[in-house]
């Protein structure tokens, strides 16, 4: 098993395209997306805009630890402008034979 980093981003779905582009640019070419995430957060005056607005998405990407700093740099401006959260966790990867070496 190999040490990797787990990046998880929760954001409004209209940011999805931009976020994925940012991931791609910083070298992360694999990810998964869960849609239809409901959420609530504290930012003054803004509330969750259920059905009438676009929903949140939940993006998970596992990557080698070296990429983290460039990812954070690429993601942070998007979060600053449009909101959303990004968290990073340590994880162990069960490598399968078909895996492309990063």
């Amino acid at each position: 098993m190999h040490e990797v980093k787990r990046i998880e981003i929760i954001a409004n779905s209209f940011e999805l395209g931009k976020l994925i582009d940012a991931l791609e640019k910083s070298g992360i070419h694999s990810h998964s997306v869960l849609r239809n995430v409901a959420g609530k957060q504290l930012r003054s005056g803004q509330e969750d805009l259920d059905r009438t607005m676009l929903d949140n998405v939940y993006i998970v990407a596992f990557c080698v630890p070296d990429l983290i700093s460039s990812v954070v740099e690429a993601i942070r401006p998007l979060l600053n402008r449009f909101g959303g959260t990004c968290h990073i966790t340590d994880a162990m990867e069960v490598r399968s034979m078909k895996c492309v070496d990063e």
Partner: protein
Amino acid sequence: MDSNLILSNLLNPAILFFFLGMLAVFVQSDLEIPAPIPKLFSLYLLLAIGFKGGVELSKSGLSSEVLLTIVAAISMACIVPVYSFFILRWGLKNDYDAAAIAATYGSISAVTFITASSFLKELGMSFHGFMVADLALMESPAIIVGLILVNLFAANRDREVSWSEVLREAFLNSSVFLLIGSLVIGVLTGEHGAEILSPFTEQLFYGVLTFFLLDMGLVAAKRIKDLQKTGVFLIAFSILMPLFNAAVGIGLARLIGLETGDALLFSVLCASASYIAVPAAMRMTVPEANPSLYVSTALAVTFPFNIIVGIPLYLYGIELLWS
């Protein structure tokens, strides 16, 4: 006659199901129409009204009346946000919120239009297919105007507007695209197309609208609690502005010489506010504005006001003026 019209509107199953939806929220029932069913209904309604309008248009053809109405429609869509902006700016002291709300009221609500069209049908009154073209054409301009207003008047933060994205969002968002596409297909296939597609687009229409208004009642009622935070000014705005815009619309319709049915739809387009396309565009392009302001006013005040009181009221005014 006014009260008669309002009553006959209120005893409409579709309007009553709208109330039922609101009631469900107030008594805290767990009734809900799960996603993506409401989306299916709205796609259906857009496809059906677009197609029907196209078929009608293929029969009537283009006339100077049609072109005049289109010019009037686009003008209203561009001017309403401008005067709304200055009123809102004065009342709210916030340029971003003012621009976003102004754009919302410059655009239209397709469901309000469709509810008005089925109200006409019930009264045995007809309308022309080109009104659907107006519906499609009035959705987008306000988004552009709103953004121009922000760029001209708002304190300049590091805004880099991607105009290509804004234009795509404005003119190619799913509702405008499907509406125009269905309209064109209706024109192309004409009477023959209508024959094979009408069991689907005609017979289900009122039922789907009813179901959709049930959902709109649920959604609108959930927004009502937000109104506490919006303040009296905005609530007054979201009733008085539609009334004013409808009056302007009726005046224009009279000038152009529209028939009563078309005049009602035109006034409803002017009076209604967008609660889907424009809010989505504003959230993306003017993230500084507070979405709960522009969504709640359009959805929890203007929309119910128009479908319950507005539609019969505007028709009453039109019948007075035209007779």
